[in-house]
């Protein structure tokens, strides 16, 4: 049944999936890097409605005595060279939280970072909405991401997790229907993490607070929403790293080609 779904669609990835994948990848990259510029303006995270320099931050990046540090709760880690205290491309010491190679623009400009962020936030949000609607309409979600009862068996889930550490299995996976771990991951990213980025982003807006006060209540306050926004972004980076690792291990050229041209369904590989 599952194989049939791939055969009937003729290619590994449908045109809408491929177009969205490309646009979304670009948007997330710009949103992440411009988001780090915005974070640099106040590199502290709080829980609750309010939070400023005199309030307790559960996470903070800072610099003291030429030492950069990351503080998580009571745990303080030295991060000189990476966070809080680093050298820019001209060898000057900078004490912004995230270094220039990770931000857009590479120099500190909150106003410009915000412009990049909000412009790409619109493309990202509209793209995600259109992809969701189209993928439900063309039954991509129902066919390729639907989980059957037998897939939920703990033994199957465990086997699927173990398979992700076996190169021989990963190599063959490029032509196979998605396994339970892939399905759960893609559903979590598309239907939970990505929408969460939009909703927590809106929660930080004072105008949206007036329009839709339930947003703030949903997250227990604006600063909580800001923290969740940051954590969800971190989880997306984590997803990206594992996603890239799996692509590299399963045949990077063929996988990349499939995501650009569509590739072929079942008979695509050997």
């Amino acid at each position: 049944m599952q194989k049939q779904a791939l055969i009937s669609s003729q290619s590994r990835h449908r045109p809408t999936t491929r177009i969205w994948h490309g646009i979304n990848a670009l948007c997330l990259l710009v949103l992440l890097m411009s988001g780090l510029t915005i974070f640099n303006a106040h590199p502290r995270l709080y829980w609750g409605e309010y939070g400023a320099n005199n309030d307790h931050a559960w996470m903070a990046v800072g610099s003291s005595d030429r030492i950069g540090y990351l503080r998580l709760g009571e745990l303080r880690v030295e991060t000189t060279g990476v966070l809080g205290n680093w050298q820019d491309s001209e060898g000057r010491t900078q004490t912004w939280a995230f270094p220039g190679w990770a931000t857009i623009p590479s120099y500190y400009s909150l106003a410009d970072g915000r412009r990049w962020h909000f412009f790409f936030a619109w493309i990202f949000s509209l793209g995600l909405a259109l992809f969701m609607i189209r993928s439900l309409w063309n039954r991509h979600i129902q066919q390729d991401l639907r989980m059957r009862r037998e897939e939920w068996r703990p033994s199957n889930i465990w086997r699927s997790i173990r398979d992700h550490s076996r190169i021989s299995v990963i190599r063959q996976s490029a032509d196979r229907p998605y396994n339970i771990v892939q399905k759960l991951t893609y559903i979590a990213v598309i239907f939970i993490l990505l929408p969460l980025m939009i909703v927590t982003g809106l929660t930080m807006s004072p105008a949206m607070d007036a329009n839709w006060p339930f947003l703030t209540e949903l997250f227990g306050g604006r600063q909580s929403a800001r923290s969740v926004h940051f954590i969800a972004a971190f989880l997306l980076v984590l997803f990206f790293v594992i996603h890239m690792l799996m692509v590299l291990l399963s045949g990077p050229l063929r996988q990349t080609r499939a995501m650009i041209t569509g590739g072929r369904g079942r008979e695509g590989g050997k």
Partner: protein
Amino acid sequence: MTIFTRRQLIGSAAIGAGSLLTGCDALTRSPAVQDILASAETANFTVQRALGDRMELASEYRAADLSPVFRANGTRDPGTADYKTSAAQGFADWQLRLTGLFLRPQSFSLAALQSLPQRTQITRHDCVEGWSAIGQWTGVPLKILLDIAQLHASARFLVFHCADRLGGRPYYESIDLLDGFHPQTILAHQLNGEPLPVANGAPLRLRVERQLGYKHAKYVTGVQAVASLAGIGEGKGGYWQDVANYEWYAGI
């Protein structure tokens, strides 16, 4: 078919990432790109205004929700001779001048403003930098002053002139009439039940609760009604808009 070695791939990825950054910086400096990026402001403004009933109130809080310390930002003391003289006498000589497109332009002393009907609200102040503080503000609703001085039909914006200077330029801000007549838009003279501290804008600061902190002009000396923002400062409607690409509409 071209065969890439792993090293070549990693190398080109690093060059790609490097040129992406240089490219983004170059794009950021291009006025045409700035115009495209700034179009998101128009979208934010249009959609956020369309979503509510336009006079929707910002959330108000209880006294128990107040921030222990209300952070001050931007100018913490105008420091000019005039300001010092005025502060020394408890701002008894402070004048708020309503100028421009008013049918009855006039000035108000602090005492005159305090004798008008007042509004007290506990609201959350959201700075563009990302932090928030909750404070209780008391002041005169701007609507009352607008009703007294009566706007000319051609007035579209209200410009707030301030006593402080940043980087040698006078600070100013502006809002449209929708925010001007909003019930929570007040000229506050008290924070948490005490006279406004100098660091927070004594003796008079704007509260425009549905926008970010930089819109909330401090040390306000005048409200000018205008038909267009073109002739004020560099024409972008505020100090931060003129000096650094900050958006005039700060609802997000």
